[in-house]
């Protein structure tokens, strides 16, 4: 009888833990909403004054304040994803199909090292090492691709620009995409690969025919997760970017964009209570954006079967 109650108690504790997590997440949302509410439902004039002081008098409406920030966030992380994606797929293929078997676990570890380095160290490195060295690179990019509006000049010097930030963000999300892509590529059915090779396909053709189609869903999902990480990254952006609040797309010009996360970290220390509310409201917007991106990623993974579990069962 006594054992039975212990059994029940344990079961309840476990269930309670699960429910508590739901509670915590609800709490995150509710507390943020409560703290953000004064911006929307409080003293109209005071809220407008706060937003006006954040934007240097450019606007008094919350939407006009947060709009360029959303744009900047999406621009910087989208560009980071574009830079990281092909490199990550390349590394994943290198580890799964090109590198000698003995090396591949070591190489995976090297990539994981990239993920282990804290973002503030990337920020420090980006601001003090990368920024002074990127100017010649961007000049070349501008000279070659200047006809594309994204790379139109003027090229800012020092390049504390979205382009430089995107490079750092790309390095940071690289390991996320790589490790997921690698896990998927390794699982490509051996029969399909061998069949392709037996038909006389070159190694690349085999990858194109067997490996990439098999991993397509997973790759999309991996890049979405990487994007989610880039969207919320604060320190690297805060320490590198020269901020601005426009919808400009000139990646090589400074003072065009700012991200939500970096803006929160920059303004928070000197914000009064209404200012904090405004920043929390913008944090909620960021939360919603990352939620959508992550949701899409999970949906795609679910559609492609339970990839993470399949790997474990194989072992």
């Amino acid at each position, binding site marked *: 009888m006594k054992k039975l109650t212990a059994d029940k108690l344990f079961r309840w504790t476990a269930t309670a833990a699960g429910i508590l997590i739901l509670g915590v997440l609800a709490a995150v949302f509710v507390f943020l909403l409560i703290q953000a509410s004064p911006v929307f439902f409080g003293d109209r004039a005071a809220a407008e004054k706060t937003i006006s*002081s954040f*934007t*240097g*008098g450019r606007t008094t409406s919350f939407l006009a304040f947060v709009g360029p920030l959303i744009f900047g966030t999406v621009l910087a992380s989208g560009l980071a994803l574009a830079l990281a994606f092909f490199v990550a797929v390349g590394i994943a293929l290198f580890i799964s199909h090109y590198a000698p078997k003995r090396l591949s676990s070591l190489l995976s570890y090297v990539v994981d090292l990239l993920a282990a380095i804290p973002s503030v160290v990337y920020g420090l490195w980006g*601001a003090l090492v990368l*920024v*002074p060295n990127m*100017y010649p690179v961007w000049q070349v990019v501008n000279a070659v691709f200047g006809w594309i509006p994204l790379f139109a000049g*003027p090229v*800012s*010097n*020092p390049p*504390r620009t979205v382009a430089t930030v995107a490079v750092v963000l790309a390095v940071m999300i690289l390991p996320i995409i790589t490790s997921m892509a690698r896990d998927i590529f390794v699982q490509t059915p051996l029969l399909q690969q061998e069949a392709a090779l037996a038909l006389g396909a070159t190694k690349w053709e085999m990858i194109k025919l067997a490996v990439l189609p098999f991993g397509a869903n997973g790759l999309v999902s991996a890049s979405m997760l990487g994007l989610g990480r880039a969207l919320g990254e604060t320190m690297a952006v*805060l320490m590198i970017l*020269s*901020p*601005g609040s*426009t919808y400009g797309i000139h990646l090589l010009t*400074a*003072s*065009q964009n700012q991200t939500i996360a970096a803006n929160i970290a*920059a*303004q928070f*220390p*000197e*914000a*009064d209570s209404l200012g904090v509310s405004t920043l929390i409201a913008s944090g909620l917007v960021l939360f919603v954006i990352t939620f959508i991106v992550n949701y899409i990623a999970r949906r795609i993974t679910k559609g492609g079967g339970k990839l993470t579990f399949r790997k474990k069962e194989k072992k």
Partner: protein
Amino acid sequence: MRLSHNDHSECVQSAQPWRRILRTVLVGTSASVLLCGLAACGDNTPSPSLTQSSAQAQGSYTEKLSGEFAAAGASSQKSAVDALIVGYSALQPNIAMSYDPSGSGAGVNTFLTGAVAWAGSDASLSDEQIQSSQAVCLGSTAFEIPVYVSPIAVAYNLSDYGLNDSSVHMSPSTIAKIFTGKITSWDDPQLKKENPDIADKLPSLEITPVWRSDKSGTTKTFQTYLHHTAPNDWTSEPSETWPNSLGQGAKGTPAVTMTIGQAQGTLGYADFAQVSGLGTVAVGVGSDYVAPSPEATAKLIDESAASSDSLGADGRFVIDVNYATQESGVYPIALVSYDIACPVYKDARTATYTKQWLTYALSDAGQKISQDNAGSAPIPQSLREKMLPVIDSITAASSGTAAKN
């Protein structure tokens, strides 16, 4: 069945070393915590250059204090206050003092709630704020004491062209035109005309203006200067935020100087103490050009204090800085930062502390410490002599009301 039994015993064994490791870690941590005492753990012995100079002034701080004291406000004062705290702590070893650089606005608001003894502010108080200070100052209104004056330099980087040592000359109108994008190159005819000596060395290089992206008193001061001296070229109303997005923004003075240092042809405004290694512009004053220095700035404060109306009325020493000065040898761009304090405090402890702190900040020792470690300009002797009696009148509530009656 047998298989799983084996597994079971194996994992029971594997759990043993863990317990041992955990125990070692716990014992080790608690031992190191015990070794290390409490609050003073790891404190540094401050540099004698800070503590010795204060020791001479021992006499004025006979009333010993203890406990924690908090202040908050302008981040511009931070490095000066940090150094002063070390010097003051040498006189009052039993206090723990903190300064939260939350910004002028936030600091004053915290002061008005009574949470801090005094606040640092880059701007003088508005009449409204003075009115609301009655609540926390028990019926009297707040004092404003200028304690920190920082020259604001216009710094540039032309080190590749060997021009960082040669103080490029610029008139206020030229500076305004650069920051509004009307002059964009270092070899602009206007710049050549003002710099006949180095006209040939000025490169055909784009000027990148660098400004503060955060709200700051430095930005407001710099804009006010341009507004007063080049009204035709600088048309925006001075405010704490920078009005355009030409060039690059940077958060905080250190980031501004870092940005300037990272590329050639950059030009920005920054507190003088931070610009070492960069070139500084000699700005046009009258028919002369004056390079920034604490001494030239002290002259400006002297001159401005002399011409400020109602200086010191109700303990408000608001200096109306004469940016448009024509005096020769006076550097015209300076940020004046105030300490906001109450004439009357609820408890005697806070009153004594505030009185001592402000006296210390304005003492010779205090002024030297902030000049050495924060690059500030000294507050003129005459002005300090006017302020000290006012500071001396700070009292606690009971005796305060008696004095009023």
